[in-house]
């Protein structure tokens, strides 16, 4: 304990080792030999399955008689027209959770980076450690927290907050569980660390002298934040939003455990189609659409935000 409360190690100076050219190694085959096993693994178990899935999505047939590629693109049309509400819902929920994560996570990342002092390490541990306690169990804990007769719902009811949220369609009656609000709350909770950590990394890199300089030039704290801190933390904002939005869109655990049949997301549909209804072409088509949509959105987002050196 004593060591944790000590002053944190100085922020590692960006390691600018004089970057000489990579030493020329003998053996021009070495890089390929190093790459081969891992890339083969990724190719066979990641790239190839995506191709298989694309082919499955244009097959027709049945479980008993087997499937055959018939270039039946109508599956895509049918799947979209049957499940577009779930698609829209997934994007809405994931976007709300991402915005909430940003709003909640920024102060925490800022606190760790600039204000925590000797508590920095301890707070970092507390942010990361829940990762190691099964997230399914932690998600189930929200069932207790948001229970119908629990203190949270009672307080919200007494303050008439639930009347407002019901009117907005986020909750139903005086319940929070089994409503969109509960699902978004669970999504926000589950992916919050993925927002905090990249934010912290980019905030921590900011030279504190820049703040002093802004102060010396008579910038108010709010101006300093708007003109110095926020722009410099944009890489963290971009990678944080990606790390939150992508998994949140495909998630079906929160919608299943905390939601109802009216809050089903596209992940729920893909899971049921694949594992219970066994309608493989439809499931593959849905999954393919989700993949294409996410890749498209991510590419556009990275281009727009101008941080292509994320990887």
């Amino acid at each position, binding site marked *: 304990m004593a060591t944790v409360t000590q002053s944190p190690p100085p922020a590692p100076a960006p390691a600018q080792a004089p970057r000489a050219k990579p030493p020329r190694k003998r053996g021009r085959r070495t890089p390929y030999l190093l790459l081969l096993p891992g890339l083969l693994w990724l190719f066979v178990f990641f790239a190839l399955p995506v191709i298989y899935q694309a082919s499955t999505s244009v097959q027709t047939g049945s479980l008993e008689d087997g499937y055959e590629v018939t270039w039946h693109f109508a599956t895509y049309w049918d799947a979209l027209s049957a499940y577009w509400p779930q698609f829209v819902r997934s994007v809405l929920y994931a976007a709300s959770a991402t915005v909430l994560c940003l709003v909640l996570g920024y102060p925490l990342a800022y606190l760790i980076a600039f204000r925590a002092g000797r508590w920095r390490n301890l707070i970092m541990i*507390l942010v*990361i450690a*829940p990762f190691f306690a099964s997230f399914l169990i932690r998600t189930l*804990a929200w069932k207790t927290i948001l229970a119908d007769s629990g203190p949270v719902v009672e307080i919200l009811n007494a303050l008439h907050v639930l009347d407002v949220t019901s009117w907005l369609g986020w909750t139903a009656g005086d319940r929070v569980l089994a409503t969109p609000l509960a699902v978004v709350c669970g999504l926000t909770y589950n992916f919050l660390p993925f927002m905090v950590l990249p934010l912290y990394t980019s905030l921590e890199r900011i030279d504190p002298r820049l703040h002093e300089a802004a102060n010396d030039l008579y910038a108010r704290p709010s101006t300093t934040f708007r003109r110095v801190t926020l722009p410099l933390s944009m890489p963290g904002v971009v990678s944080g939003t990606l790390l939150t939005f992508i*998994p949140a869109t495909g998630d079906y655990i929160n919608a299943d455990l905390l939601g109802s049949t009216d809050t089903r997301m596209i992940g729920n549909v893909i899971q049921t189609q694949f594992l219970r209804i066994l309608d493989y072409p439809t499931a593959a088509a849905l999954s393919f659409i989700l993949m294409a949509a996410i890749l498209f959105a991510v590419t556009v987002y990275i281009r727009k935000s101008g941080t292509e050196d994320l990887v």
Partner: protein
Amino acid sequence: MTFVNWLKRRLVVIAGLLTLGYLLLPVVVVAVFSFNKPKGRFNYEWQEFSTDAWRDPCGVSGLCGSLSLSLQIALWATLGATVLGTMIAFALVRYRFRARGAVNSLVFLPMAMPEVVMAASLLTLFLNMGVRLGFWTILIAHVMFCLSFVVVAVKARVMSMDPRLEQAAQDLYAGPAQTFLRVTLPIAAPGIAAGALLAFALSFDDFIITNFTSGSTVTFPMFVWGSAQRGTPVQINVVGTAMFVVAVLLVLVSMTVGNRRKRQKA
């Protein structure tokens, strides 16, 4: 007025601490409810204090079996992903070769894709090949999705390494193998360790990909998922709490040791 000013100055700290509370609240609930004695099958409402579950953590059939299966899979997946990922990371940083862009995207894409897509496509492959789902298919899937994270962690460390150290070793007549073992590997070790730790955590706690690739094999997250449908035993809270405590303790111990080493060197 002074109070308002005080509040204004501490607004960030207060908001940050509130977020931290939001993050920790479920952990606290899990821990508290590990001492509950529920009436029905579900452990969602507080009844009375009891240490029954702590005294008999394996008292629910299938729980400890699933836990040990998850540990085995996580260990093997960590080993596989760490070895393969470290090799890729070294190749990416240290060598120039053709098709670097393609390699980078193949490594990056698994992280930019929702798990459910990877899981579903992997399942179509297994079904098409007629592979029996179980331990091996789970392991294959876990190595696949942990690999990229190891590459990123190791790459960051190797990139910040001073190449002159290796040149110095070679000037001092160390052979390639000796240079690698005595200089390169020790310096890269923290990155490799971070990658391995991440892989372990990801694999051990993975649900979505396991859900698709496990067939009827039950890992710990699968067990929790099943019990959410049938009735949650208090014992899963015991396991969750224990994992949290162990993780925090391990980090604290490693930091203490690290700090002591640093002080000795200084």
